[in-house]
C-alpha cells in the first residue's frame, strides 16, 4: 500500500479495535475474577 497516511489510519483503527475488544472481553472480566 503506497498511501502512508491511509496505512497509518488503518493500522491505528485496527490496533484500537483489537486492544479495546480485548480489554472488554478478557482483561476486565479477568480483573473482576469472572474468568
Amino acid at each position, binding site marked *: *500500500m503506497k498511501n*502512508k*497516511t491511509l496505512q497509518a489510519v488503518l*493500522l491505528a483503527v*485496527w*490496533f484500537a479495535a*483489537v*486492544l479495546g475488544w480485548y480489554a472488554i472481553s*478478557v482483561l476486565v472480566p479477568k480483573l473482576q475474577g469472572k*474468568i
Partner: protein
Amino acid sequence: MNFITSGPVASIWASVLLAAIMLIAAGAGRRLLGLVRIPDGVFLPSEAGLYSLMLGLTSLSLAILIIGWLVFLNAAVLWAVLAVFGLLAVPRRGTRFFKFDFKPPSSRLILTVIALILFLSWLQALAPAIGMDALSYHLEHPRQFLMRHRIGYVPYTRESLWAYQTEMLFTLGLGIQGATLAVLFHWAYYPLTAWGMYVLAMRLAGPRAALRAALFFMLTPVAFAQSGYAYVDLALAFYTLLSVNAFVAFSQDEAPSLALLCGLAAGAAAGTKYLGLASAIVLAVLLAVRFRFRPGILARFLAGCALAGGIWYLRSWIVIGNPVYPFFRKFFGSGFDFDIAANVGMGSGLRSFALLLWRMTMHPMAFGGQMLGPLFLLFLPCVFLVWPRRWTREAAFTIVFGVFYTFLLFKLSQHLRFYLSIAALLSVGSAWVFCRLREARGWVAAIAAGALAALVVLHLGIFTYRLRSVWRVDAGLESARAYLEAHERSFRAYEFLQERVKPGETFFNDGEVRYFYNPVPGMAFSCTPLKIALKSRGLTISDYVKRQGFDYILYEADEGGWDPVVRELAKAGVYRLAYQYDFYEKPASFHYEVYQKVK
C-alpha cells in the same frame, strides 16, 4: 515419597542441576550430531548447539527409559546414567557451543525484556508442583516408576504407556532432586523454544525479525503459564519447531542428512506427545511434495522419526497391543473411547477454523482457560499492509505446514496449550510483519512500536500478577505444605490420610484424579480401565468397593459421573465420615469427603 521441595536452597540446587544436565546433554548431543554428518556451512550460528541439545535430551530420555525398563530404577542408577552422559560430553579442543548474532541496535532492550520474562517464569516454576495433568500423570507416573523401581505399565492407567520422552526427564528430576527439578525441566523448554524461534526466523526473515520472534513467543501468556507446570506442551512445541526448521534448512541447502535431522526432531515431537505424530505426517507430505517423492529423502525422514520416537509406540504395542492406547480401539482391539476434544473449543466447521485466531484471543475460557494474548491478532492481519512482492519457497512451505497442522489440531482438540508450536510459528510471522511496519517509517512505524511497547508493559504486568501467590513460598517465607493447602485442591485430603492411614491399611480414591500427593502405597482408584475390567466380569464399582472393603475412601462429591457407593455404605453404617472440606478452584468449587471403615 511425595518429592516436595521448596525454598531458596532447593531452588538454587535444582537450578544448578538443570544447568549441568543441559550442558551434559548438549555435549553428548554434539557427538550424536557428528554422526548425522551435517555438511560444514549449513548451520547458522547457534543452530548446531540447539540440535545438539535436542539430540542430547532425546537420547538421555531414551537411555532412562531403556534402563528403567530393564533394570532396578533408583537415584543411584540415574546418577550413573548422568555420569556416562557426562563422559560423552567432554568437549574436544576448539569446539564452540553456540554463538548468537545480536547486531540490531535495539537488541539490548529486547534482550533485557527477554531476560526479565525468563526470570519471572523461573520464579513461577520454583513453586511446589500443581496443575491438573501434572499431578494426574506427568509427575505421578514418574513417581510411580521410582516407587516401583521400574518404568512400565501402571495398572489401570490410561496414560502410562503414552509417549513419555519428557516424563523421563521428570523421572530423572524426581529421582535425583525432587519436584522442583522436574518442573524446571519443562520450564527449560520455554527459552529453548524461543531459541528455536530465533533460528527459524533467522532463516525465514533475517536477524531483525529473529530476536523479535523470540520476544513475541516469550510474551505469549499461555507459553509463560505453561512454563510453570510439569506438562509437556512446551517440549512438543520445541521439537516440532526444530523439525520445521530442519525442513526449511533442507529446502534451502538440500543436504540429505538434513532430512534425517528433520525426522529425528519430528520423532522427538512424536515421542513427547501423540499430537507430534500429526506434525510428522504433515512434514512427511510436505517433504514428498517439495522433493518430488524422492524415496531416499522420505526414507531418511522416516528413519529419523522411528529412531527418535518409535520406541514409545513399540512399547505400547508390545505391552498392551495398541501403539496409541487407548485410542483407535476398534482398529487395535484394546483401549476405550476417549474424547480429548470434550468441553473445549468453539465449533468444528470451516467458519470456526477461519475465526480460530480471533476466538482464541477473545474467548480464552472456551479454549481451556489460558490466554493467547492479543499480539498475534494485532500484527498478523497487518500483513495485507506490507504484502511482499514474492514469498520465498521456504516461507510458503512453512505457512502451508502451519495451516495444515493447525487444521489437524483444530479437528483433534482445541485446548489452547496444544497450539504452542503454532504460537511459535505465529511469532515468526508477527515479528516479520512488525519489522516491515517499522521499515515503513513515519506514523506507521511509530504506531507499531507504540503498540508493541504497550503490549510488553501489559504482558509484564500479567506475568508479575501471576506471581502474587508464589513469591512467599519461593523465598522460604511460606512452607510448601501451607502453599499446597491453599492452592492444590487434593492436598488436604492426602495430608489427612498421611496422618491417619496405618501401614497395611487400604485406600480407594473415588473421584480425585490428581494422585501425585497421595501418601498411601497401592492406592486403588476409580477409572475407566477399572470399570471396563470389572464390567467384563459382570461387576460394577459398587460391587468392587463392597468386596474389597477398603479402610478409607476419598469421595469428591461434585465430580460428575462417579458412583456414589460410599454414601450408600455410610448410610448402612459400614463407613463413617472422617474428614471433609470445600475447595474453590476457579471456576468451580469442590467438596471432598474422606470415609473411614467402621471397625
